[in-house]
């Protein structure tokens, strides 16, 4: 019981730090790093739930595999977009990305 709560607490802390990072940074790459930290926290929670509540059902581990895949894909597409923006504007600062702002 204590072990489960320790793992969930770590996941919660990582989620909070990732949320702070994703909201406070101005650069696209740093925002993506915040999202990575958040997803890491989510994965810790998932594995803790699998191990301590339902270790016989492996769809928990399958969920973690899907989250890892999403992490990799989000980084790939994000860097593609970042490359494209860097080529057209010269920086990836999100403060300057106000073209669509009403």
């Amino acid at each position, binding site marked *: *019981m*204590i*072990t489960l*709560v*320790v*793992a*969930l*607490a*770590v*996941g*919660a*802390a*990582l*989620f*909070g*730090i*990732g949320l*702070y*990072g*994703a*909201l*406070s*940074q101005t*650069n*696209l*790459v*740093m925002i*993506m*790093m*915040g999202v990575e*930290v958040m997803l*890491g926290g989510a*994965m*810790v929670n998932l*594995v803790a739930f699998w*191990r*301590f*509540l339902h*270790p016989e059902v*492996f769809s928990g*581990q*399958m969920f973690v595999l*899907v989250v*890892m*895949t999403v*992490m990799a*894909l989000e*980084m*790939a*597409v994000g*860097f*593609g977009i*970042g*490359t*494209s923006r*860097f080529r*057209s504007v010269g*920086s*990836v600062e999100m*403060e300057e990305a106000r073209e669509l702002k009403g």
Partner: protein
Amino acid sequence: MTVQTVLQTFFLAFFGLAAIWFAVVVFRTSSMVRSALALLFSQTAIGAMFLAMQAEFLGVLQIMMMATEMAIMAIFMVMYMMDPGGLGEMDMTHQKRLSQVAGVVGAVAALVVAFFAGWGPVAGSAPGAFEQTRLLGLEIMERSMLIFETAGVTILTAMIAATATAIAVREVRKRGEGE
């Protein structure tokens, strides 16, 4: 509280604190490469937590994937950011108060749920490591086959999308010059 549970809790707490500390370093340091490598070690600590929770395949996979991903992130940071060495001490944040409040609220909400929810009976042991790899493979191939296939198609789509986004500008320019 058996010796095994005590050890497990200790290692979880140790690696968890390491993961949290490295994640804090990611956003507090002004050197970009240090930031990327701190994220790498944070994810490695998360992978070590998986190993402590006896999910061996996931732990090894996490450690392997994140090392490669974060090193690639390091080179992208050096390419795209203004001050990769961090010697200029620029403050690259905005809406600091809002994001601090949001982070704290998110973490506290998750902590409250973690402490006060009734999780039910805690399982004593997990299948052995050798058995787990086999069972995970069977799970992927039998029940979660559709999810796995969808993930495969998603990976292909993302690869094509990323490549197309990254090379799109050149094609437009060439077509413009050809007219």
